[in-house]
């Protein structure tokens, strides 16, 4: 006998993500899921964002980096609450991990929660956390073919940050065809060119971020 099931395999994760979002909403916290390959600049962007919004927006950070707590320590020095998630070598964060981490975040004290996902362009794409926006960082040294190799990630992102544009003079990267490829499969996407090293483009990213927060 055959029994029809027709059930999405990730539906359990989606349900927990929805609960996380409700919790965040009830505390008026706006959550951003930051994803990229290792080394693209997630931690650098978090640090830059904290510095620029100091005294204006109260920020908390969840660190999902694979094994070390190095990133968490660096961010902790900025004086914002940081919670480290230990994925035990896992390749992505999931809604359940975020749910336990949230119980340790002082949600009443923050307005913006930046979540650094595990450096990986495949696995995090499928696992919603309960975030309000998905932000993907893709950096110049990685090359401009990444949308073709990891289409799902680029398809789902609300914003794509092209980071390390200070390196454009030295490396081959066609930002125009890169952006066009992403826009082709993602109607809603916002694309920014930034450098965490020189600060170029950071204002545009921040004003987008603050607009998204105020619109919610």
């Amino acid at each position, binding site marked *: 006998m055959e029994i029809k099931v027709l059930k999405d395999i990730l539906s359990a994760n989606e349900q927990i993500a929805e609960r996380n979002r409700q919790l965040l909403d009830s505390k008026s916290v706006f959550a951003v899921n930051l994803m990229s390959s290792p080394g693209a600049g997630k931690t650098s962007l978090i640090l830059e964002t904290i510095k620029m919004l100091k005294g204006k927006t109260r920020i908390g950070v969840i660190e999902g980096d694979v094994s070390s707590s190095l990133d968490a320590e660096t961010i902790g020095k900025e004086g914002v609450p940081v919670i480290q998630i230990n994925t035990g070598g896992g390749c992505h964060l999931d809604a359940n991990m975020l749910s336990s981490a949230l119980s340790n975040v002082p949600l009443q004290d923050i307005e913006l929660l930046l979540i650094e996902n595990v450096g990986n362009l495949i696995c995090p794409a499928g696992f919603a956390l309960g975030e309000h926006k998905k932000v993907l960082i893709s950096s110049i040294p990685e090359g401009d*073919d990444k949308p073709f190799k990891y289409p799902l990630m680029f398809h789902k992102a609300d914003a794509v940050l092209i980071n390390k544009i200070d390196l454009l003079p030295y490396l081959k990267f066609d930002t125009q065809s890169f952006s066009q490829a992403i826009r082709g499969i993602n109607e809603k996407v916002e694309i920014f060119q930034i450098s965490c090293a020189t600060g170029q483009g950071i204002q545009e990213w921040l004003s987008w971020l603050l607009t998204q927060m105020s619109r919610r």
Partner: protein
Amino acid sequence: MHEFAITQSMCDIVLEQAKKARVKKVGKINLVIGEMTGVVGDCVQFYFDFISRGTLAEGAALSFVMVPPKARCRDCDKLFDLKEFDWTCPYCGGNSLQIVAGKELFVESIEVE
């Protein structure tokens, strides 16, 4: 890899359905997987053998229907297979596309005794 988490959720869904229908044994599980998810069938099989041990689904055969990515052109409305490194419409050269297949990840059905 994420196949472990995916196989775990898949098993949960299968066992819940099997219990609801009060079956003795799950003989086969039919899965639909879009190629864009990056989920590898062999990996799912590997974890499944381990995760299903001692459950109603132990020894069940896994069948995978892999769905290649398909897109619809927003300019001319035609459907086509999304090629790996060329995202232009083969009919009109447009490059605004709606992905209509390739993101699937679900349990289609189970065959039970």
